């Protein structure tokens, strides 16, 4: 009984959104707003239940109950946390800049570790022997390595901005870089199709199999 109801509700939701394909219409907008409301409600409640309540409220109460002097840390966290909300006021906007400033500062300070931990292994992994001997498939191996090193250098040269290459031959390097980047962007495009279709197929599958009961499965 419940299941049948659920499937119908789900089907109506799905079809209402699909109606956008013909044109924007009131039914679509209605369900768009329902979705927006559901999302906001869900995120707010989950943030309270799983982040703020266990990690802030319960601890604050606990600290006050046992007389732990650390309770002021959680009071400060609350005051700083409230500063975010001044973003919505034109007059008091500057107060929110304190919260934003701290947040940006933390992000900036961490960026050094973040980027260097990411790229140091990338740099050392790019030290490829461009001539390999005495291994199987050495021609292919050497070619791949040479190709990779060349590509990295060419693409990097495309992003040099403070000088121009003087010699005609060198000018070809950034051009080659842009062309080689296109292979990568082709791969981006090719990979996009799967993501876009995955959900669409899932929806169609639901409509056909669970709602209309067509086909096996």
């Amino acid at each position, binding site marked *: 009984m419940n299941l049948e109801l659920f499937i119908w509700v789900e089907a109506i939701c799905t079809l209402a959104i699909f109606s956008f394909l013909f044109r924007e219409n009131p039914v679509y907008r209605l369900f768009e707003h329902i979705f927006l409301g559901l999302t906001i409600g869900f995120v707010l409640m989950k943030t309270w239940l799983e982040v703020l309540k266990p990690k802030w409220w319960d601890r604050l109460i606990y600290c006050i109950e046992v007389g732990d002097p650390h309770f002021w840390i959680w009071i400060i966290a609350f005051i700083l946390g409230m500063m975010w909300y001044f973003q919505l006021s034109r007059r008091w906007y500057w107060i929110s800049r304190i919260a934003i400033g701290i947040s940006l500062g933390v992000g900036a300070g961490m960026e050094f570790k973040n980027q260097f931990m990411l790229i140091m292994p990338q740099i050392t992994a790019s030290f490829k*022997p461009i001539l390999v001997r005495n291994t199987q498939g050495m021609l292919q191996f050497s070619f791949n390595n040479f190709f990779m*090193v060349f590509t990295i250098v060419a693409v990097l040269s495309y992003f*040099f*901005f403070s000088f121009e290459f003087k010699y005609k031959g060198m000018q070809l390097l950034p051009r080659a870089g842009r062309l080689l980047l296109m292979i990568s*962007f*082709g791969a981006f495009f090719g990979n996009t199709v799967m993501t876009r279709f995955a959900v669409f197929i899932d929806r169609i599958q639901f409509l056909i199999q669970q709602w209309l009961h067509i086909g096996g499965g």
Partner: protein
Amino acid sequence: MEHANWAIRFLIFLLCASILIRIWQARKGKKLFIRRLPGLDAIDEAIGRATELGKPILFSLGLGGLNPTTFASMSVLRYVTTTAAKYGLRVIVPIFRPEVYPVVEDLMREAYTVAGRPDLFSPDDIRFFSDQQSTWASAVAGTMERERPAANFFFGEYGFESLIIAETGRHIGAIQIAATVSYYQIPFFILACDYTLMGEELYAASAYLSDNPVLRGSLVGQDLGKILITLLIVLGSIGATFATLKGIPNWILELLKY
């Protein structure tokens, strides 16, 4: 490796010093050289085309809030508006984030005034549609269909809507220039636009067209970092080649581990 080693400390020092010195030089008024990108010619061509046809220009700032990318796009907007205003053209700016609106309004008023055409400024040309991506995209597409701009500029950060708006722009036959740091969207812009500035080129274009010393100095300073990485890779690969051929250790690799 929980903390930085000497190689990393050295690289951080070099990079920071190079960027800060360049910014300082630029602030002192030193004219730092930035290469003229091919994309910049495309921007001028697009404005020229709009002038020939006497049609408006559309300049979208993308999804970003008030962050450095949006500010960089805004200096390009200032250049485009000032140039277009001299020829008596309107510039339409669709806005995604409400907080961007007042900043753009001030910028546009100033730009029209600088160009000597304060009469052309109309707040109605700066349009806040929605901060829902799909709604915004269809509103921008709708605007293109109605206003028929001769040139479209897509600068800033984009999501899936790039596909919808760039396609519509191509359909109405506008010259289109895109510049985005959102790498996933670059293929769609390449397909639908006449020229696409990729990633960092957005900042380079902005630094070239404006005289923001911080941006210019930082960009020139960054080049040292990139040159250093390039050199390391070339030397490291040569080292690795000798290491496999002759069996001697790759000292560049050892150096980075120090």
